[in-house]
């Protein structure tokens, strides 16, 4: 009886609320919001000035832009060149950087942070700035920025200019992947690295791959190496390269199907200040990846390849794309060939892993095995990075990082905002893929361990952290 009365009063209350909503609906839902946000909060505006004036001002501001970003990086990270002894990336040509590089706030230690609640860390402003979203070197302009090695190689091979007049790449070379990266083919595992230490370009791909790949794969490769107009590299006045440009190719960022740490802003967020930086992801192991795009969760590499012309190339702005000359690959033919080519790219060999993705105890060291145990149990890593599924779970997860920091602070024109759900990335070949996280905010594997130790509240010991890094080097 009492329950019925309570239920009755609740439903009466609900009815009153509903009436309130309906009343509000008359004003808010009437089809006219008096002053919505301006269209350039979503759409790319047309330039208001001629290119020569824009360029002069961009070039004038460039030293200060680079200095500002360098100051932010130095404030957040130790960027020194300190490779691990006896560890190289898979091609054997570049070292793997050692140690935690994210700097602590004054008065904090990693241990003291691990013993605090997210609320305390937030209230005392102790969240390491290196764990915050990393801004683009020039966030308000955004767009693709290539490292010097890629700019030089493509300039030499194709006489195509990937250098912007407004910004340069911001991370030191030793914190980026091996260049050129080795290429391992899933259809020819007997061969090993087929790159010969060279960068694949539109000028050399045929001679390098004929006889190894099928005709449709070679055609897919040609398309992946063909430059097409892009937001900053195109023929119009709205560009950031000196000359009219033929554009960029897919493999300009995904060099040799891996990554050169070229970066961009996510196409999936507006306004501009809220967009997060995107570090180029590796295409290795594409055959096992079921969702694509850090935010969009596209269900096939075909979908992703087709739509990338709207996103990586034009920031998710099909209007701008149409003006600058978008290339829309034909789905049944071109897209299928490009996708098939990407699906032929294997992970680098991991000789200590068994067919189930677990360490072979006869090959792994005691420390590596200890690291695997942490990975599977206390570290909770395997909850998402499932060994027998190429260290993926085909899900997006929200780490709710904003528990640790005040929202809305602006760093170099980027607003520190919640990232929301982001897809799980593979850990196979992970030592080859610095910097880490979707925006490249973490420089080393040791940084990723401290990050997840804090974010997941793991309370790992120093030994356990070391073992985890040793384990990840075997993947």
């Amino acid at each position, binding site marked *: 009886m009492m329950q019925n009365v309570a239920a009755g009063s609740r439903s009466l*209350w609900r009815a*009153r*609320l509903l*009436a*309130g*909503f309906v*009343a*509000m609906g008359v*004003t*808010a839902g*009437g089809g*006219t919001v*008096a*002053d919505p*946000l*301006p269209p*350039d*909060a979503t759409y790319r*505006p047309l*330039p*208001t*000035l001629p290119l020569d*004036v*824009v360029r*002069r*001002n961009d*070039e*004038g*501001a460039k030293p*200060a*832009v680079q200095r*500002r970003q*360098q*100051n*932010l990086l*130095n*404030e957040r990270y130790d960027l020194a060149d300190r490779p691990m002894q006896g560890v190289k990336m898979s091609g054997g040509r570049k070292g793997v950087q050692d140690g935690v590089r994210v700097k602590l706030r*004054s008065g904090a230690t990693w241990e003291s942070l691990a013993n605090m609640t997210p609320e305390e860390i937030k209230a005392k*402003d102790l969240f390491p700035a290196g764990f915050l979203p990393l801004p683009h070197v*020039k*966030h*308000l*302009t955004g767009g693709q920025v290539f490292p010097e090695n890629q700019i030089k190689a493509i300039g030499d091979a194709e006489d195509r200019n990937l250098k912007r007049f407004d910004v340069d790449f911001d991370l030191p070379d030793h914190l980026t992947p091996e260049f050129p990266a080795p290429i391992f083919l899933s259809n020819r595992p007997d061969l090993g690295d087929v790159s010969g230490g060279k960068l694949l370009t539109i000028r050399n791909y045929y001679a390098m791959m004929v006889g190894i790949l099928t005709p449709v794969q070679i055609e897919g490769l040609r398309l992946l190496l063909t430059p097409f107009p892009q937001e900053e590299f195109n023929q119009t006045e709205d560009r950031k390269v000196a000359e009219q440009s033929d554009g960029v190719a897919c493999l300009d960022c995904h060099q040799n199907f891996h990554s050169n740490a070229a970066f961009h802003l996510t196409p999936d967020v507006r*306004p*501009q*200040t*809220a967009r997060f930086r995107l570090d180029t992801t590796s295409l290795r192991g594409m055959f096992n990846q079921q969702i694509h795009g850090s935010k969009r969760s596209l269900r096939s590499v075909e979908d992703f390849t087709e739509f990338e012309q709207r996103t990586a190339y034009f920031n998710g702005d099909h209007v701008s794309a149409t003006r600058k000359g978008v290339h829309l690959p034909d789905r049944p033919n071109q897209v299928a060939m490009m996708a098939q080519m990407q699906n032929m790219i294997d992970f680098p060999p991991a000789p200590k892993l068994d067919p189930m993705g677990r360490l072979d105890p006869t090959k792994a060291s005691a420390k590596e095995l200890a690291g695997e145990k942490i990975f599977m149990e206390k570290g909770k890593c395997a909850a998402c990075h499932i060994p027998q599924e190429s260290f993926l779970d085909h899900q997006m997860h929200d780490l*709710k990082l*904003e528990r640790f920091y*005040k*929202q*809305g*602070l*602006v*760093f*170099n*024109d980027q*607003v*520190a905002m*919640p990232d929301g759900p982001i897809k799980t990335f593979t850990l196979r070949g992970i030592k080859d893929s610095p910097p880490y996280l979707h925006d490249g905010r973490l420089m080393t594997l040791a940084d990723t361990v401290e990050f997840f130790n804090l974010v997941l509240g793991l309370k790992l010991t120093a030994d356990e952290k070391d073992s985890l890094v040793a384990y990840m080097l075997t993947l």
Partner: protein
Amino acid sequence: MSRTSRSGWSTLVLAGGVLLASGSFAQEGANPAGMSPDTPGKEMAKPIPEGSNNQDKLFVRQAALGGRAEVELGKLAQKKATDPAVREFADRMVAAHTQSNEQLLKLGRSLNPDLPKDLDPEHQAIRNELNKAAGQTFDLAYIAAQILDHQRTANLLQWHLSTGQNEALRKYSIQTLPEVMAHLEHAKERYAVLTQGAGSKR
């Protein structure tokens, strides 16, 4: 201590994002493609920090309209809200936005932002509805409208930071944004309590 950690940037970070760094950060950050064609100094690639573009003007108008509504609807809620926590929220809105509006108009008046005399039509309609509502219905309607308003203001500030040119106004937006986002969180919390649900609080 390294040289950089003594720089203005370090002060900025340690002060939790309060912008103390001096100099021409507007020109550093902004895309000059969106600069106003009459900006003095642009031909020498040294645009003056006092320069402004259409987005700055529009921002002052929209932000001032929103701010004015915050204060006026807040005063209404101070009188009519039943829940003490909602009245407390209204107190916060009146105090914060009164101060913020003064600052905005001081910075933006010279841009001739073309401000209407009364509230904009949308907020007039909301005011009419709130005038008619009472009790819990009022509290909820007020908080629901506040959530929408603060979502829009947060986006407006971010849009201005994305496209505006005037240095002083950009500083204003940088300083105001965290506060507006905190108001939004506060409103979502109140909503969750009033509706006995989680609402959209993260």
